[in-house]
């Protein structure tokens, strides 16, 4: 039995080998031709055959004779949701695009993880002309294999708005060879969203009768202790806490105080351009001691390591969590946005979390890094080698990045039925009823959505401020101070305060300035040693951090800090410090166009 058996197995294996070799050869051919096409793109401009002739129309667009069709893969999403309403926002916007621009956009979502899908697309060679919302890392993978077109010359010739409004930041998109293969998606100055917060229940804080808002970490600790003493349990009789975490590691409890000391990504930038990891700084030790004190005094939820986002916001909603150290908007979704709905008419505007900025010892508020803004954003758009008419696509993206294009793509087709329209004098007016702050939260987004706002954004500027010096504000409604893709903030022209009382309560004590962190962007190649080092250290650090937080005495906390410090340095922290410093330097150089 044995002998023929082994022969049989050998025979079977040989067959399999043959079959797989055949399939392997097939693969080779396919991808080979793909990369060849990619390298051609850079040399000469392919002129568009759609017929971009004549003058710009009132929307600043040269309408082509033939319809420009763009196929876009835009990451994770639910096509059922997009297509569900045949007469909804999508139809309105599609019609507007076709009538006024002669453009048709085929938007594609897949309900699978974007990175996963992109890897499969790369492997099978089956991807559309334009991919957006991808991570910088994935964009680089496409570029490395010659599957993203070199668009440098197209942008130079047809992308005036992109280069004008990006300014020097455009250089940061360049590859090592100085060419551009990717564009930024959702870029621009965006200080509203990425902010760290030292929030507290506003109504409870008022009860304290403090004349002045807390401004340092210690004052914050003091205020939160007193609030907690006043409200030891919530309505349901559960014990209350000042702080918790939503990331299963207590990262927010470190990042927020480090932000109060001006650290970026956990590193302190020294005057000589070097970077020091927080474990190697005095401020780091202070933060560890501070959080450990909060823990020992019972301010921190003992189950903070088990909570995810939903458990965290549930604790806020049911009154178990009275402060918010970390991402500011958790306090909105878990706080007043939930209460306003569930309490309806009984809701009191003071019942909410206020967002507050504080600074560390020996640091001024201006030196904090609580509010950060990455100008080129974190997501990218590429035009792939499948695209036959890069000129037309760049023309369209360029239009998208005009001031008016921003408005249309962001807020939907202009009309009296939408949240905005174009007045006879050419001003882009926000419709009056939308400016009524009382109904803004409920109506603004719904109306905008019904008109196709925020539906298709391929590589768009997200928002712009009056003082950025690169954008043209001449057509904008004077009642609006800052324009963003997704929202607007009407401001009282006399006081400069937000017209909405609730929004104003939330933000009145947030005085930290926005820090531009674009140059701190650091990328890690998955196969490099430094990436492994970084991942190992990060893994370890959060384990050590949990020990520092929950140490039983200050001495034990300091001991945990010191042991973490020596362990991490042994794992190669110095290499990481160097890597971060170097990539900052490299970013600065490319920003300056060197």
């Amino acid at each position: 039995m044995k002998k023929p058996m082994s022969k049989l197995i050998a025979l079977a294996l040989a067959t399999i080998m043959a079959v797989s070799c055949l399939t392997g050869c097939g693969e080779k051919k396919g991808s080979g031709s793909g990369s060849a096409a990619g390298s051609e793109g850079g040399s000469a401009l392919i002129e568009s055959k759609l017929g971009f002739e004549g003058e710009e129309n009132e929307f600043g667009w040269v309408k082509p004779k033939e319809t420009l069709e763009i196929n876009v893969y835009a990451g994770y999403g639910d096509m059922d949701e997009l297509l569900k309403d045949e007469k909804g926002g999508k139809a309105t916007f599609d019609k507007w695009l076709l009538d006024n621009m002669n453009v048709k956009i085929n938007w594609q979502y897949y309900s699978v993880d974007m990175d996963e899908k992109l890897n499969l697309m790369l492997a099978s060679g089956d991807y559309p002309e334009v991919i957006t919302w991808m991570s910088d890392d994935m964009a680089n993978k496409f570029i490395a294999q010659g599957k993203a077109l070199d668009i440098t010359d197209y942008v130079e010739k047809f992308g005036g708005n992109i280069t004008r409004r990006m300014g020097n930041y455009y250089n940061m998109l360049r590859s090592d060879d100085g060419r551009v293969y990717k564009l930024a998606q959702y870029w621009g100055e965006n200080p509203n969203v990425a902010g760290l917060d030292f929030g507290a229940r506003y109504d409870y804080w008022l009860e304290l009768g403090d004349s002045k808002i807390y401004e340092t970490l210690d004052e914050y600790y003091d205020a939160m202790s007193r609030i907690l003493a006043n409200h030891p349990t919530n309505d349901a009789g559960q014990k209350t806490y000042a702080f918790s975490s939503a990331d299963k590691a207590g990262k927010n409890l470190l990042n927020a105080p480090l932000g109060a000391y001006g650290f970026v990504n956990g590193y302190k930038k020294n005057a000589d351009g070097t970077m020091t990891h927080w474990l190697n700084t005095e401020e780091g030790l202070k933060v560890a001691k501070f959080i450990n004190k909060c823990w020992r005094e019972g301010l921190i939820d003992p189950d903070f390591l088990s909570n995810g986002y939903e458990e965290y916001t549930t604790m806020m909603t049911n009154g178990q969590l009275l402060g918010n150290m970390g991402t500011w908007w958790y306090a909105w979704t878990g706080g007043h946005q939930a209460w306003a709905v569930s309490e309806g008419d009984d809701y009191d505007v003071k019942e909410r979390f206020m967002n507050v900025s504080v600074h560390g010892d020996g640091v001024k508020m201006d030196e904090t890094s609580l509010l950060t803004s990455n100008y080129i954003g974190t997501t990218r758009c590429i035009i792939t080698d499948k695209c036959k008419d890069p000129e037309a696509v760049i023309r369209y993206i360029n239009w998208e990045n005009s001031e008016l294009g921003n408005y249309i793509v962001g807020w939907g087709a202009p009309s009296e039925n939408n949240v905005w329209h174009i007045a006879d004098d050419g001003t882009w007016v926000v419709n009056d009823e939308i400016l009524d702050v009382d109904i803004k939260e409920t109506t603004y987004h719904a109306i905008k959505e019904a008109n196709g706002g925020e539906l298709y954004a391929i590589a768009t500027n997200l928002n712009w401020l009056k003082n950025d010096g690169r954008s043209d504000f001449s057509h904008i409604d004077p009642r609006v101070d800052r324009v963003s893709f997704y929202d607007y903030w009407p401001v009282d022209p006399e006081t400069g305060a937000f017209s909405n009382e609730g929004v104003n309560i939330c933000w009145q004590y947030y005085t930290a300035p926005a820090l531009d962190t674009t140059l701190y962007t650091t990328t890690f190649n998955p196969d490099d040693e430094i990436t492994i080092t970084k991942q190992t250290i990060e893994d370890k650090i959060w384990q050590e951090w949990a020990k520092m937080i929950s140490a039983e005495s200050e001495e034990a906390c300091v001991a945990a800090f010191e042991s973490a410090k020596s362990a991490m340095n042994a794992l190669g922290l110095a290499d990481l410090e160097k890597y971060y410093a170097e990539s900052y330097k490299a970013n600065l150089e490319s920003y300056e166009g060197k």
Partner: protein
Amino acid sequence: MFGPKTFYKKSLGSKVFDWLNFIFMLLFAFIMIYPFWNQLIVSFNEGVDTMYGNLYFWPRKFTFENYQYVFQRQNLAKGALISVLRCVVATVSSLFCTGLLAYVTTIKAFKGRKFMRIIFIITMYFSGGLIPTYLLYTKLGLMETFTVYWLPGLFGAYNMLLIGSYIAGLPESLAESARIDGASELKIYFKIIIPLCKPVFAALAVMIAVGHWNSWFDVLLYNSSGKWDTLQVYLRKILLQAEQAAKLQAEQKMYEAMKNLTTTSIRAATTMVVSLPILFVYPFFQKYFVGGITIGAVKG
């Protein structure tokens, strides 16, 4: 489950055991039902109110809204139909083929049985991974077809071994005498093996059907156009929202996604709608679990 001729002497110990067993099973039932019960009450509770937490045994603010939301999704009926079709076709084809293979590999006189078994057992431990499988299906033209639901699962090594072990427990003389009578192997499989193997076939049918009903990843991956979307996938998209929202890179997108997140209650309602139909598969198949006692009859 025992044969009808089985009797117990009702000793005291036996009675005590019966009672203890009964009480234990009741407690057990509570522990097993509770997670499901919890999802049920959450699904009937108002979405925003659920954010307050502390829901244990009864909804606080009763509502049908969550179910309305779920049932408003389009194509639910079509999805349900495809799901049922998938379950039936995949379960029947897989059981038939795997069972046949299992039977063949238990025939002692068959020379290739060890070889076949090894070839299949290897596949239990070594597999190709996502990308090669994806490329293979593309080459075979299985993308965007119904075939991709059942063909790749036609034979299963694990089930082959289970059915095989069951057949090995049967008296060998049954098949042997039929063979001597000149019956073909397929006929033996149909007339003798399948009827005798009802319990194991029923058990595996439950497992395979549930597996197909619950599977969604292959649908999203290999049928991304949505032409053959199953019920599970229509609803899974609701559940995936939360998972994906947490992965978003752009802070702005994340805030919006979280703000518009479907509530825990809607997700619970979704879980209910997806799993209730398939829960009844088990009770349906349970009657086939009583089959072993007929061996004697066949033998005679």
